[in-house]
């Protein structure tokens, strides 16, 4: 079965599912407790999964595999590689925090709310762990149901519009992918994702297949110009809904590119790299500028997500190790940081019930702990060295520089613009005079809120200071991916040549190129 002797991935999906069923039939306070316990159990299982994941040299690419052909045309096939592992870890890490964030702010229909969240957790783990094409699709699409209900029932004033837009937008994006999947399963004669990742589709057909998948992942990601559902959904969703949306659901798009678009259609990916680059460049500059003029905090962070996700896409389509590893790191870092930022918004929203930036001011005087943590996450979002996002952004921009120096140039402005809108936001909320009496009277973080934010803050620093913990499980998989897409790799314009290795250097010449990049990254941090 696997290294642990029990099907841990199915187990991790079953725990929240059982919890969800129990929540439906219990009262408010019991439901909260059940949800917290279920998510904590899953988090513990996630740690166990990470610790028992074999990262040693020559490890199997797919681990913890399960296979049960119980559904006729497709199978219950589970299994993870390092890329999926890190995203599952992100999911199970954020979920207990989401439950805590909803502890007091959700007052009506608590049982159903917790059930929806736990169901969502099951589906998110399923998306990252599925090894069967159609099983993946089912989990990918099924996530619409709980999210639609979460936004529609517990959302803000304009929640119904936002829930429809979220649902129909993402559904329309995804359905064409299903047709492409049906064709691929016919052509390759298998629904097994690892098999399909090694199958060479006809480059002519790849174009169409790639576009069908792109429609789905670009909406999910979201990429400009199909990002417009995101600000609406974020603004209307309850805090925990925004956290999950920004933290994990957007990552499904990036995961899809890594798992499907790149390895299955390398030629088409190379052919359309310009399209991805173009859309991403627009997104970085345009959505950053839009973020700059927002008066609603959640909307501002939502637009900043679009800009950050654009860095992910350019990194992915750089076709090299640094770019893809960087994209993964941005996804993980952004999952933590944007989640934390939405939590920070939620903290003050719970007190004043408004998201208007102008209604706050001078919070560092009456909420010093809050101001400190908010500062940390603001800096992480800007990409300050020592925080998670720096590693990812640096690596992916370095990777894309190899592919196209112009793209790198334009996308780097995103860092400057990001600093502008985030620092501007921070100044308006935390610094300055306490111009609003009610905002000035707000109490500082409670113990519950500290328990939510401090772990994220520590993880952000950990990722920034010692990214190797997060890069090492996925390194082999990214290498395999880079090798897979290497034949189709478009020629870059930077034409980098390798330097002459110093014989006396601490790291010998036998180490691979990515190790060199690692050193660059660490060197960058030191400056």
């Amino acid at each position, binding site marked *: 079965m696997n290294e642990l002797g029990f099907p841990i991935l199915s187990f991790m999906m079953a725990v929240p599912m059982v919890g969800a069923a129990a929540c439906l039939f219990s009262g408010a306070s019991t439901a909260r407790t059940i949800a917290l316990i279920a998510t904590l159990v899953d988090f513990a299982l996630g740690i166990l999964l990470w610790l028992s994941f074999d990262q040693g040299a020559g490890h199997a690419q797919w681990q913890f595999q399960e296979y049960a052909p119980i559904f006729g045309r497709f199978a219950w096939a589970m299994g993870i590689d390092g890329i999926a592992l890190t995203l599952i870890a992100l999911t199970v890490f954020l979920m207990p925090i989401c439950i805590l964030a909803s502890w007091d702010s959700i007052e009506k229909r608590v049982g159903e709310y917790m059930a929806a969240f736990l169901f969502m957790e099951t589906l998110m783990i399923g998306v990252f762990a599925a090894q069967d094409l159609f099983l993946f699709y089912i989990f990918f699409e099924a996530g619409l149901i709980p999210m639609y209900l979460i936004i529609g029932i517990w959302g803000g004033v304009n929640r119904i519009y936002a829930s429809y837009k979220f649902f129909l937008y993402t559904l329309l994006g995804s*359905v064409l992918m299903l047709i492409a999947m049906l064709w691929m399963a016919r052509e390759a004669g298998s629904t097994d994702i690892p098999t399909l990742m090694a199958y060479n589709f006809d480059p002519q057909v790849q174009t169409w297949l790639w576009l069908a998948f792109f429609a789905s992942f670009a909406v999910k990601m979201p990429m400009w110009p199909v990002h417009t559902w995101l600000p609406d959904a974020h603004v209307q969703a309850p805090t925990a809904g925004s956290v999950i949306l920004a933290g994990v659901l957007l990552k499904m798009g990036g995961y899809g590119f890594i798992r499907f678009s790149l390895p299955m259609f390398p030629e088409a990916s190379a052919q359309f790299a310009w399209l991805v680059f173009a859309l991403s460049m627009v997104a970085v500059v345009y959505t950053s500028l839009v973020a700059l003029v927002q008066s609603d905090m959640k909307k501002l962070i939502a637009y900043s997500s679009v800009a950050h996700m654009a860095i992910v896409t350019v990194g992915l389509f750089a076709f090299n190790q640094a770019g893809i590893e960087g994209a993964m790191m941005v996804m993980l870092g952004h999952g933590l940081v944007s989640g934390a930022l939405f939590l920070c918004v939620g903290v003050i929203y719970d007190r004043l019930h408004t998201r208007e930036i102008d209604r706050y001011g001078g919070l560092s005087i009456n909420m010093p702990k809050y101001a400190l943590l908010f500062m940390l996450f603001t800096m992480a979002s800007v990409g300050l060295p020592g925080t998670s996002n720096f590693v990812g952004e640096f690596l992916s921009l370095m990777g894309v520089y190899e592919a196209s120096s112009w793209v790198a140039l334009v996308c780097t402005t995103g860092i400057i613009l990001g600093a502008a809108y985030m620092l501007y936001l921070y100044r308006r909320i935390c610094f300055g005079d306490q111009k609003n009496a009610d905002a000035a009277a707000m109490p500082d973080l409670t113990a519950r809120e500290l328990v939510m934010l401090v772990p994220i803050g520590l993880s952000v620093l950990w990722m920034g200071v010692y990214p190797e913990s997060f890069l090492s499980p996925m390194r082999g998989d990214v290498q395999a991916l880079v090798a897979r897409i290497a034949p189709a790799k478009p020629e870059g314009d930077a034409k980098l040549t390798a330097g002459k290795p110093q014989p006396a250097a601490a790291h010998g010449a036998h180490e691979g190129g990515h190790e060199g990049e690692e050193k660059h990254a660490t060197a960058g941090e030191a400056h």
Partner: protein
Amino acid sequence: MLDTASLILAMPELVLTAAGLVLLMIAAYAGDKSAQLVGWLAVASLGLAALTLGSAWTAGGDAFGGLYSGDAFSTFAKGLIYAAAAVSILVAPRFFATGVSGGVLAIRAEYPILILFSCVGMGMMVSAGDMLTLYVGLEMQSLSAYILASFMRQDGRSAEAGLKYFVLGALASGILLYGISLLYGFTGSTSYDGISAAMADGLSSGETFGLVFVLAGLAFKISAVPFHMWTPDVYEGAPTPVTAFFASAPKVAALGLTVRVAMEAMGSAVSSWQQIVVFVALASILFGAIAAIGQTNIKRLLAYSSINNVGFALIGLAAGTAEGVAAVMSYLAIYVVMTLGSFLCVLQMRDASGNPVEDIASLAGLSQSRKGLAAAIAIFMFSLAGIPPLMGFWAKFLVFDAAVAAGMTGLAAFGIAMSVVGAFYYLKIIKTMYFDEPADAYAPAASRLESGLIALCATLIVLGYFFNPLLDALSGAAAAALH
């Protein structure tokens, strides 16, 4: 000379005919007091008929010199038809006992008997191996259906539904009969095999006309666009148990019939009818999705939903392959469960004094007053919209898979994109139940039978994937039986 083998194959129809006649006698002498008893006996005879299906499944073939074929295909369809008919009989007494606004009207004993006779007709339809058997079966089913539609005589809407159904149905029967006569005239045969053999050497213009008229007549029976206009009115006006029946069993029968005619009688001219089926399928999907958006009556909405669903089922037929036929049959099985579940939920929609309501607006806030019912409706609506992990997704998956396998990727892509339009109005119902402020509460659930059936349907829709291998095997065998 009696042909015993043929009689054994036709046993389900014989059982139902005999049961119908006996029950008619009981009803005639015991009066409407016996309605409950007759209902249960009718369900029992449906069960008995289902038991006699076995021989046709295992060793089926043509009977009565090719007029009738009792094979795996007809068995599959009959199983669905009998199940749907039994449900329609079981839920009727409570509806008629409390169901009519402005006066109590107990169920009359003819109701289950009419359904039985309708089942005989539907059995003939799916088993027909000859155009004349087809026509007799179709008329038998239709005549019972006309009466059922106007079963609430005092109710103006019901009478209107019956009359409308009758007039338009008669027109469609005429069109169908005209097509059959053309086919007979130009091919010299009314048997499917004979027609198929005559068409094998290319279509003459007379044969083409015959084919078009036959398909037009059948399109009316399956309520496919552009012959759908009777559906919303009849569904709205007919008593709700009858609507549940119309939306399930006759749909299976008519689609099964269409599939058999297309694959057997016109199997040698696939490319000629394929374009018609493609057009009808796409028009039904598109029209069913768009016209449903503005509806305020739940039964009308479900009528448009059934038009929409027929369009998706026809995509499987448009593929023109055995796999496509299997997909259609699986689609029908899943569709019957979804649609019966939905109508059972509609039966639960009663205001505080027990009168039935059909307004979608009255569902507002249902998730707070009746959680279980709201959850069931939400499951059926998400399923009809084709959202995984519910079974409605699998039904669409199978027909699109068949279309893609047959190289009709464009058709599949257009169909699935249109399903997003359809999703909008299903979402509207969920939004009304879950997001809106509560309206007046419904009466509490009063019937264990209905609640149990709803729970059964909902469970099947949620956990149906575990039955996938079984469904694949059954529908595959059914499709293989067509030649």
